[in-house]
């Protein structure tokens, strides 16, 4: 190929992206557009009936962390907001950890089945996705509420004297979220374990590794991409969860998602809701960056 021809090919490859312009335009409006509106709302004063009015103020951003005293204007920490933040992060991390502890053996079980039955097990894992999240959450409610299935059985078996108070607690939210997001942990873990060469287990056992060392030194490092993917897929939606904490946490045990909804609804403080949304986005992005950076460094260092 002559240099002239080569230049022409390079040129046409460079201009090729123009073909994807319609998709890019659509993406710009769909992804950046709404986000820009949210950011804009967060720096505007609230209107009297919800809504926002024209103007610029950082009150909403201040309102995330501080409350202004109505009489003397002094600032104090917004304890309620901080509690919600902390609860969201804590429950999301617990959900991720627990989903991993349950999801890993599950994925291992499926990956070690004969190829024929593997498809069936995977199919069973995806079945919960077929039903609406709301319905499934109500079903969990039915199980763990005061007069629910679990308490009835435990009482009948005389294992407990008083019904357990599970519904409308952090525990209920945690149970619900783990249930809802578990498949998102199992599927990427399975994808990693499916590619795992089981002959390495024999090699490790042969080289004096105990079963625990085989898990820690061989299986976990090799399936790490799956663990990271699964953790992200569980942690991110957990942090912004709305339906589960709303139905199982009651009014008191709000998470960030519920707080945002409240500001756009009864709270009639759109700017605060918008600022909170952007804050959530920043937390998630920061968490992902730290995680990915850490994971990458480990991988390059380890190999």
């Amino acid at each position: 190929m002559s240099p002239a021809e080569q230049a022409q090919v390079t040129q046409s490859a460079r201009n090729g992206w123009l073909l994807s312009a319609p998709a890019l335009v659509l993406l710009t409006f769909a992804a950046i557009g709404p986000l820009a509106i949210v950011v804009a709302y967060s720096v505007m004063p609230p209107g009297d009936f919800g809504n926002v009015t024209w103007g610029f103020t950082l009150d909403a951003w201040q309102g995330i962390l501080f409350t202004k005293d109505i009489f003397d204007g002094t600032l104090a920490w917004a304890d309620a907001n901080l509690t919600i933040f902390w609860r969201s992060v804590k429950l999301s991390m617990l959900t991720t950890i627990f989903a991993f502890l349950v999801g890993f053996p599950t994925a291992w079980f499926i990956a070690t089945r004969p190829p024929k039955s593997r498809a069936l097990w995977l199919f069973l894992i995806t079945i919960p996705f077929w039903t609406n999240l709301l319905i499934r959450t109500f079903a969990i409610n039915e199980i763990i509420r005061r007069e629910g299935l679990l308490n009835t059985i435990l009482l009948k078996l005389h294992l407990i004297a008083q019904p357990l108070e599970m519904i409308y607690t952090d525990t209920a939210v945690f149970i619900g979220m783990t249930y809802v997001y578990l498949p998102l942990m199992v599927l990427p873990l399975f994808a990693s374990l499916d590619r795992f060469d089981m002959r390495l287990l024999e090699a490790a056992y042969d080289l004096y590794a105990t079963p625990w060392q085989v898990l820690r030194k061989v299986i976990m490092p090799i399936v790490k991409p799956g663990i990271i993917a699964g953790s992200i897929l569980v942690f991110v939606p957990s942090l912004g969860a709305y339906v589960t904490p709303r139905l199982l946490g009651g009014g008191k045990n709000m998470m960030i998602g519920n707080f945002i909804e409240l500001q756009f609804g009864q709270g009639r403080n759109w700017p605060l809701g918008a600022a909170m949304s952007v804050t959530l986005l920043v937390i998630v992005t920061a968490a992902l960056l730290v995680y990915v950076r850490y994971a990458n460094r480990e991988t390059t260092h380890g190999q």
Partner: protein
Amino acid sequence: MTQSIAVEAAHVIKAFGHGDTAVRALDDVSVQIRTGEFFTLLGPSGCGKTTLLRLIAGFEMPSGGTILLEGADITTLPPNKRPVNTVFQSYALFPHLTVAQNIAFGLQMLGKPKAEVSATTAKMLALVKLEPMANRKTSQLSGGQQQRVALARALAPAPKVLLLDEPLSALDLKLRKEMQIELKRLQTETGITFIFVTHDQEEALTMSDRIGVMSAGKLQQVGTPKEIYNHPVNRFVASFIGETNFLPAIRDGDLYRLDCGIKIAAPPAQADRVTLTVRPEQVRLVMETDADAIPAKIANLVYFGTDTHCHLTLPDGTEVVARLQSPPTGDAGLAIGQSVGVRFVPEAVQVLED
């Protein structure tokens, strides 16, 4: 050579499956492998040689019998409790570790001090000539190099016995020859007992101190390469190792009468109906008129470079192959259809009673 026993299998049985569908991969196998020897388990695929190796490694538990390591019963010990290491057919190198980390793995699992781990790892890298590759990922290595990493990894913890499961089968011919020499060198240098599994009879003959020939879950014969080649105990061993001629015969006093009526000498036997076997290189072509020559016709000539295979037909139709060294001119002066005389070197004729 010391005669102490490194590994002993006593009446080992391994059955897979249950009830009527159970298959006996190993059927009452007993063998003693001496300390410091290069022992090869040779046999066709499915003969049970790999199963026996896996039982010694501890990956499988026998259905019956015992396995002893230096006199101690290890039958039920898990693999990580046996001072025995394996070189796998697929190498099974850890993809997330470097060459050096792979080699150090066993030592680390044994909880050796850091200084010892790095010293031994360096020694092993030198032994398999892979020092420049120490920090490479194993996926960046060629097949032969991966093979050497697998060897070094298994040798690093200084096992009492090294098990090798067809480790050369994935390599091309030239590399395989090199690795055969390399393996033999490593075995001599380390003095570790090697148990080598292969289906390649040439590999077995060139490398082993002793060979155990297996077929259908049974050990057919154990002996040095020369014993196995020159004194096979049955038809399977005779035909599996090297090429050979089989001649049905009937015992007639001290001699054996071939189907074509000619009597030849061979070692004494119990049975009356026997099979005589003679290697093609021990078949001589003589003048048709020579005394005690068996008359034959040349059916085919196949030129192999170093030698020529001469396919002969005896009067009763029995086929015999003679391997003749190619003369300097390349032409043996033989022609298809020519009548010649055949004589067997007397000491080379073996009697098989089956």
